């Protein structure tokens, strides 16, 4: 009895303190007092998972409580993103919201969009690529597009589900170049690895995953990268030309990974996590981790991230409409 009373008063004091802090000015020194659940909407071992596990472990060291990574996969990301959005905004559930949050509403999968989450910080940004098998007849993106233009529907591409981000990458590129978005037909796959396996096996002609995902196979000579859908070249693969150099439309496409909380996450908690994350991104450990994956360190806080997600929502919505996969 005594104990529960003490707990109650303790809770009340904490509550009053939070309210007080919120009213005056966010101090950004909130710390979790029990384990935090870190939801990843994609499978273990993928890029989102690896980035999130690394960040979670470094948050754990910084904030002194376990950050338990939980993979909630399924429904092209809908399941995991809903779990993040529907959690209590108390700072004890955060997660890896990815670019798909801006697409799923357009695709008619759910009502969920970026307004249902609170962006804390950008973790990674991964531009798409155009890959072909080593024995493919196409040496350049131009040759590939020229063939597709003359023989629409003959070539196939893969790398993610129907209407997934890498599908948008190629269909949007074709559309931006004034071609039929169906000129290269999309073959759905469960993720980038499965898509690249199809490519090596000769099941499809093109794959358009993130260049970072295809990097190992490009370096080993199994696959050939025709283009990088980014304004600047990748430091780890400097020979791969960018779409900005190659195409009149300067089409680019990238996926992103964030750390975010549910909608209505208190300012104090958001800015505490934001501060911690941005400090982590400065460390040599993080830089080393990023380098191992052939990626650059990005650093973007809550306000800019929210704006970027809104922007992406508009852009991808327009692309999805243009290529006919928006509902």
């Amino acid at each position: 009895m005594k104990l529960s009373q003490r707990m109650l008063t303790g809770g009340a004091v904490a509550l009053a303190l939070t309210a007080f802090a919120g009213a005056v000015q966010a101090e950004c020194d909130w710390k979790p007092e029990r384990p935090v659940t870190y939801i990843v909407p994609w499978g273990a071992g993928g890029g989102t998972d690896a980035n999130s596990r690394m960040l979670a472990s470094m948050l754990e060291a910084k904030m002194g409580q376990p950050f338990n990574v939980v993979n909630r996969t399924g429904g092209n990301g809908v399941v995991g993103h809903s779990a993040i959005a529907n959690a209590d905004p108390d700072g004890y559930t955060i997660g890896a919201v990815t670019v798909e949050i801006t697409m799923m509403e357009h695709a008619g999968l759910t009502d969920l969009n970026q307004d249902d989450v609170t962006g804390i910080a950008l973790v990674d940004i991964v531009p798409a690529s155009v890959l072909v098998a080593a024995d493919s007849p196409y040496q350049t993106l131009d040759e590939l597009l020229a063939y597709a233009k003359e023989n629409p529907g003959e070539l196939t591409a893969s790398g993610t589900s129907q209407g997934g981000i890498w599908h948008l990458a190629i269909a949007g590129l074709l559309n931006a170049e004034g071609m039929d978005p169906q000129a290269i037909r999309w073959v759905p796959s469960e993720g980038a690895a499965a898509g690249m396996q199809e490519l090596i096996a000769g099941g499809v002609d093109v794959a358009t995953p993130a260049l970072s995902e295809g990097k190992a196979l490009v370096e080993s000579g199994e696959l050939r990268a025709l283009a990088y859908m980014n304004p600047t070249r990748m430091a780890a693969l400097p020979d791969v030309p960018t779409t900005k150099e190659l195409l009149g439309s300067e089409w680019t496409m990238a996926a992103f990974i964030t750390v975010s909380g549910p909608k209505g996450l208190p300012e104090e908690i958001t800015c505490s996590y934001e501060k911690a994350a941005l400090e982590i991104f400065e460390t040599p450990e993080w830089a080393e981790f990023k380098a191992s994956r052939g990626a650059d360190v990005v650093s973007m806080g809550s306000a800019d991230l929210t704006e970027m997600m809104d922007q992406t929502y508009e852009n991808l919505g327009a692309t999805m409409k243009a290529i006919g996969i928006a509902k």
Partner: protein
Amino acid sequence: MRFSDFALGLGVAVFGIAVLLHVRTFPEIPGMQYGPAFFPGLIGAAFLICGVALVVGSVVRGAALTERFAERPAWFGDRLAVWRAVGVVLSVVAYALVSPVLGFLLTVALLTAGLLLLMGVRWVVVVPLMVLLPLFLHYGFAQGLRVPLPRGPLELLLF
């Protein structure tokens, strides 16, 4: 509950038909006759065939209407056995409903104790198990394997 071939076949066939009707509402891939409905439709049809095979088999054997549609398992006569079966099912339901409120430790302690008593185990055995099992599992899963188990009053007190 053991059903006669006739009853089982009828049930399976009806299920097959229900699946076949339901998959007609699935969208198609433009320009292709194989879409999301194809595979479930195939399975529904196979259910239907299996069901019909069972029914026909029992009619041929002349057992269609002479056999009882459903045979109660013998343990239905044993009241304790029925309670034990109900207890097993209900404790799973109870965990799903109650653990978010009571937390892992309390729920598992209560379930363990309840089930053991239902099986007719003596208190001497029940008490240590209901204390040790939840703590052991909590230690292994929450601390060791880092599974976020549901938290309740006992967790707040202990951890």
